[in-house]
Structure formats: structure tokens, C-alpha cells
């Protein structure tokens, strides 16, 4: 007990950000240790354990990115945006259309990747601006439906056959002739574009070509991988994940700077009492539009880094359900706290997203769990005291069970812990806590 007190006292003397790094690092390491122990105990090879770590970290990073962007909207400003997937789609599609090869199907503009990334962010911010201008005036629940409707409009437009490929330009204004440009969304089959994970190639290989001579970093990482028996492709993906972690840190620093700036105090004031903020002479409408556009640009960037790393950008990756995953990640961590967003992204990725898959692969490798064709057969065997078919059926339907689990987690959090893991750290608008009340729940301030 005293040792623990010593540790916590030593910690409390450190600055907040060091404690946060230790917190996130501790959670990550503890989770990795858990997965490694379970994996090794059931005879999973080092290569696939490291592969699982890579997958967990990749999803943790992308969910942390999107949750941070959403935290700016919801956690700080109180804008209930449930169209995140739509803004991600705008970013990723713009990037793909700008960078896809001009002779591809659908054709793109063939511009460099960086142009595509910046263009995607600008496009997402522009769509955010168009959505924000009128939508910010409506009630919170209407705003939710407007943003969800918008994200579905975007997805269906991308899915539509009539936009699969189209031509722009080809007309002349006076003496200036606008050249014809062929573009397209590819409809249901998506659009093939250079993947953003080429960044990893540039870091690992001289000349940026996979298969070239490794750089110094490449030598070190491949040597390490070889010693542990980890394949090169996992190391390359892992390097891209490290790049993503860099982006997470950048997002975090940016949002924390914003949160403690005068602009950030206006955001929190809007969340807590918009009328009061307006009475104090703050232009809340302009602030909301600005912060909405910034958040949308970050969502666009997150969409690019996530879906853009798959070489194929397809409309099915932007279903409304993706928005709800991001919400679960944010709520698990606790909205209103940037560190909470990162913790939430990691917990979601490790335990709700990759955990069930890991369990399934262990179960399939170790036990004879063939799934019977229907759950009726499974129950019929259970009736004759053979539980294995039911276990097999449940493991075979782990995807469905994962969805049920995510739904239940969301409900349980809303009932018993609406603050999430770190929501109590929500920063308030005033310099001192005037109310001295326990932390209010997200979005549900009914203390009048």
C-alpha cells in the first residue's frame, strides 16, 4: 500500500503529459503482454503474434485518429456529428481521384500523393463547411440526422453507377479552352489509387521501391524481424503503423494546443452553454463553422491514412456503422479528453475489434470446432449432451457476436458509465470549477 502511494505521489509530481504517456504506454504494454501470454500458451507462433500486435496497433491508431477528430466536434464543442464516415469518404475519394493513374479504370489525374492528401483534406473541410453553414442552427438530434443523411448521400453517390466515370471541362470560355478531364468514382467496384503506405517503403528501402536495398532503418528492422522470425511484410506494415502513430501524436498535440487556447475555451463554452457564450460577445456560429471544418479536415486525413493504405478505395468501407465504431471508441475512452480518445481507440481495437479474431484463430488451431450448418443443429447436439457443435457455431459466427458485444458495450456504458474511462478529465470552460459538481455526463447536461 505504501509503495503504491509512493508511486502515485511520484507520478503526481510529473507534468500531466508524462503521466498520460505512461498511462497509454502502460495500457498498451499490459494488453500486448496479455495477448502474448495467451498466444504463447496456446502455441501461436511469434510471427502471428507480432502480426496480431501490428493489426491491433494499426486499428488502434486509425480509431484514435478518428476519435480525436470526433472529440473536437463532440467532446469539446458538443456537435453531435454522426456522419464521420461520410467525411472520411470525401477525403479518401478525393485523394484517390487526384492520384489514380490517368489510364486506369476509373481514370484519375495522376498527381503526386502529397497533392492528393492535401486535396482530400481541403475537400473534406469544404464539404464540412457546406454542411455546417445551415446545419449548425438546428437542434442537436436534428443535427445528428442531418449529418447521418449527408454521409449516406455521399456513400450512395460514390456507389452510383452514373458517377462511375465522367468527364469535366472540354468547353471554352472566350479564347481559353478548358481541357477535358476524365474522372470517376468507380461505382461499386471502387477506385484503385496509389496506397499511402508507400511512406513505409521510402523509410525502409533506398529509392522507395519495395525490393530495393534496405535503408539503415530497414536494415535494423529487418534484422530484428529475422531474429524473431517475423516476415518482412509484417515489418513493412508495422513501419506504416509507426507512421500512423506519429500522426496520432501530431493530432493530439494539435488538439491539446487548441483546447488550451482562447479559441478552445470558446468551444467548451459552446458545449456547456451556447447562449451564455453568445451573451458574452463570442461569435459562436463562426466558431462552430471553423471547428467543424477543422474536424472534418482531420476526419478526411484519417480516412486517407486508413482507407488510402489499402490501394482500393471502395464505398463499402464507409458504411454508417464505421461512424458508430468511432463513437464506441470515443465513448469507451471518455469524450472530452484527448488522452481518453487514444485510450478508447486502443481498447476498442484490441478488445472489441481484434480480440475476437485472435480468440477464433486460437480456437480453430487448437480444437476441433467445426461449425454445424445452423444453430438448430447446434442446439440439437446440445440436447444430446454434446456442447461442442454449439461452441463451434458460436466461434463460426464470431463476427455477429462481435457486433452484439459492441452494441451491449455501448448500452452498458450509457447506463452505468457515460463518462467512459477518462471522461472525468473533461476540461471545463471556466478557469476554476465554479459548480464543484461531479462531472456531468456527455451531452446530457440537464442541470438547470
Amino acid at each position, binding site marked *: 500500500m505504501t509503495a503504491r502511494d509512493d508511486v502515485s505521489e511520484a507520478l503526481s509530481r510529473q507534468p500531466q503529459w508524462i503521466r498520460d504517456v505512461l498511462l497509454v504506454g502502460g495500457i498498451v504494454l499490459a494488453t500486448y503482454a496479455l495477448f502474448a501470454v495467451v498466444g504463447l500458451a496456446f502455441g501461436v507462433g511469434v510471427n502471428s503474434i507480432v502480426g496480431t500486435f501490428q493489426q491491433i496497433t494499426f486499428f488502434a491508431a486509425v480509431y484514435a485518429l478518428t476519435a480525436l477528430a470526433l472529440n473536437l466536434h463532440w467532446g469539446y464543442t458538443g456537435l453531435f456529428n454522426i456522419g464521420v464516415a461520410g467525411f472520411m469518404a470525401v477525403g479518401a475519394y478525393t485523394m484517390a481521384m487526384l492520384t489514380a493513374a490517368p489510364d486506369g479504370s476509373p481514370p484519375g489525374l495522376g498527381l503526386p500523393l502529397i497533392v492528393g492528401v492535401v486535396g482530400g483534406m481541403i475537400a473534406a473541410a469544404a464539404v464540412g463547411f457546406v454542411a455546417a453553414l445551415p446545419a449548425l442552427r438546428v437542434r*442537436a*438530434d436534428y443535427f445528428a440526422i442531418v449529418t447521418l443523411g449527408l454521409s449516406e448521400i455521399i456513400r450512395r453517390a460514390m456507389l452510383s453507377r452514373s458517377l462511375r466515370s465522367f468527364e469535366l471541362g472540354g468547353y471554352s470560355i472566350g479564347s481559353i479552352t478548358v481541357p477535358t478531364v476524365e474522372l470517376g468514382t468507380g461505382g461499386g467496384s471502387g477506385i484503385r489509387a496509389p496506397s499511402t503506405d508507400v511512406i513505409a517503403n521510402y523509410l525502409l528501402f533506398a529509392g522507395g521501391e519495395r525490393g530495393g536495398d534496405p535503408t539503415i532503418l530497414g536494415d535494423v528492422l529487418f534484422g530484428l524481424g529475422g531474429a524473431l522470425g517475423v516476415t518482412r511484410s509484417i515489418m513493412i506494415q508495422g513501419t506504416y503503423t509507426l507512421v500512423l502513430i506519429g500522426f496520432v501524436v501530431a493530432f493530439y498535440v494539435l488538439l491539446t494546443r487548441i483546447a488550451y487556447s482562447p479559441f478552445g475555451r470558446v468551444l467548451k463554452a459552446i458545449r456547456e452553454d451556447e447562449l451564455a457564450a453568445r451573451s458574452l460577445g463570442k461569435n459562436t456560429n463562426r466558431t462552430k463553422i471553423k471547428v467543424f471544418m477543422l474536424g472534418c479536415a482531420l476526419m478526411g486525413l484519417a480516412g486517407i491514412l486508413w482507407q488510402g493504405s489499402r490501394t482500393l478505395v471502395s464505398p463499402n468501407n464507409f458504411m454508417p456503422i464505421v461512424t458508430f465504431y468511432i463513437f464506441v471508441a470515443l465513448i469507451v475512452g471518455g469524450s472530452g479528453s484527448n488522452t481518453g480518445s487514444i485510450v478508447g481507440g486502443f481498447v476498442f481495437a484490441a478488445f472489441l475489434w481484434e480480440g475476437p479474431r485472435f480468440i477464433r484463430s486460437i480456437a480453430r488451431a487448437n480444437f476441433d470446432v467445426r461449425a454445424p450448418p445452423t*444453430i438448430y443443429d447446434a442446439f440439437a447436439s446440445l440436447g444430446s449432451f454434446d456442447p461442442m457443435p454449439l461452441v463451434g457455431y458460436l466461434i463460426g459466427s464470431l463476427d455477429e457476436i462481435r457486433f452484439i458485444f459492441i452494441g451491449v458495450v455501448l448500452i452498458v456504458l450509457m447506463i452505468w458509465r457515460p463518462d467512459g474511462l477518462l471522461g472525468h478529465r473533461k476540461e471545463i470552460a471556466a478557469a476554476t470549477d465554479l459548480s464543484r459538481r461531479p462531472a456531468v455526463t456527455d451531452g446530457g447536461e440537464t442541470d438547470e
Partner: protein
Amino acid sequence: MSTVDVRGRVSDVTGQELVGAFLLLGIVVLVFDLIRQVVVGELSAGLLRSYLWSGIVDSLYIGLAAIGLSMTYSILRFANFSHGDLITTGAFSGWTVAYVIGGAGVAEFSSRILLRADGGAPPGALEMDVLANPLAIVLGLIASAVVTIAVALAIDRLIYRRLRDEGGIPLLIASVGVALALRYLIALFYTTDSRGVVGSAPEWEDPPLLPVEAIDLHEATLVFSAVALMLGVHLLLQYTKLGKSMRAMSDNKDLALITGIPTERVIFATWVIGAGLAGVAGYLIVLDRGTIMINLGWFLLLLIFAAVILGGIGSIYGALAGSLVIGITINLSLVWIPADMNEIAAFALMILVLIFRPDGLFSGVETA
């Protein structure tokens, strides 16, 4: 979350009116273009009639579900995102009962109880249509309402009641969780495969007094049941004490409490009516379309929201009118835009109405 109503400033009103006028102008232009197309002969009268008719059929099942969504929205004060999955619940439970009863002796019980999850005997072999198996179809209809009501009441007791005073957004988020859990619980039993469960619809050739060659009897069942249920809800709300309490509660909850209206009993009745209609809607949609899938209700949810919002939240007559607008929009828009973009038109209409006429097209107050 602050829900400050910023509307009402002079500059905003003019902007709203401007956009409203544009909208109206656009609709007038489209109507004239429609008349021109029919007169010139680009669009045959038969095609126009079939668009309008399918618009009305779509609006009927959207309307059935919209009544319930509108009631929960105005009485429980939250946007219930799990309403779509109540529709799915009704579809699966109703058709399971219809299969268990109607297919006895033809197909294996293991196949019938899970609605052909194993790909068993096709619906044609079971003669799953209203003429060959009327008893099973009617019992299925009743079961769809009963099971959905039971599920909705259980969910309310377990989840929504605990959040009653938390405000709209926590309830909305919880309802998203309910939607996910409910849908995939169904999927766990019935699998995620979409499949045909209804036999081909029998037709009534050359009906008297009607200008059509044949009537699809499944569609006729849908139309008849939906209109009868809507009429029933109308009578209930207007002429019973329960209906009056419900209208009072959606108007002003505090005032209703003071007057001694039993809140929880009204909420109970809201779920019974809303969930029952949603379940029946799901069952009838499957009867009309012939196929069943677990995303059935979720895919419809946004259209139902659109209908409710168009009509003004809380007004069930508004919701029915909104359903008609949405149903006609998604079908008639096919005259101008490709089929895979028709829902975009409906959603865009919904967003425009939400932004520029948040009280709905008919500016109804929040009451039934």
C-alpha cells in the same frame, strides 16, 4: 448538449424564405416538366401510373413504421435508432410463425424454424402465399406484432427506462447500441444471408371497376392491412382516453404529469402501438418483396426518419403525409435520375426540410 434555438433572427428568416421559395420553384418546374414529358410522350401514362402506385405502396409501409417512430420521438423525446431493427424483428418473427404453421408436413422443422437458414425447401414448395396458406399468413401477421411488442417492452424495461431522464443524446446513443445488438442477435440465429421466403404472389385477373389488368394479391394485402391499421390508430388517438393522454404527453410532459396522467402507462401504450405497427410493417414488406434479410429495417430507417421529419415530429398525420411525400419522391424521381440515386433525392429533401422547416412541411405543432 445545448440545444439553443438560433432561428428567429430577421436575417435568417429571409434566408429561409429564399431557400424555401427556391425549393417550391424547383418542385413547380419538375411538375411542369412531368406534364410536358407526358404530353410529348417521353413518359407513357402507364409508366407514370406505375411509379405513382409503387410510391403509394412504399409510403404505406414507411408510414406504418413512421407512426411508431414519431410517437416515441414525441413522447419519449429521443430519436430511436433501433426502430428499424424492430421492423426486422417483426419480419423474422412473423415469417417464422408462418413457416412453422404453414409448412408443417412439407419441410423439415429444423428448416422452417430458422426460415430456411440451411437453404431447405423453397417457398414455392411450401405454397407460401395468401391464397394457398391464408391461415399461416394471418397468424404470422399477428405474431409479428406480438413478438415485436414483447421485444420492445423488454428493451424499454431493461434499457430505456434507466435513461428516461438523461436527455435525448444518451438515449440516442443507447438506441444505436440496441440496434446493433438486436440486429446481430437475429443474425446469430438466422444467419446474415438474404433469402426468398414468400411464394410468387397470386393474381386476381380482370378485377371489376378497376382500370388494371391484374391485382397482385400480396400487394393488396399490404395495402388493405396498412390502411386498416392506420384507421385504427386514428380512431384510438381521437376517441379514447388513452389517445387523449398520449396527445397531452407529447404536447407537454410536465403539464401532463401535473394533470395526473399516468406517464409510465402512456409510455407502455406508446411502445405497444409503435412496436406493433413496426413489426407488422416488416412482415408486410417481406410479403410484398418476397425476400428477407437482416438489414431490412436498418436500410429503411433513414427513409422513415425522413418521413417523420417531413411531417413534423410528433404528428402522426404529418408522419403519414411525410411518408406519402417520401414514397412518391423515391419512385417519381426515377423519371429524372438513375435508379441507384433515388434515395439520395429523399435524403436531400429530408435535410433541406430539417434545416429550413424544422417543424415539418405542414408546420405542425408537436402533437398527434
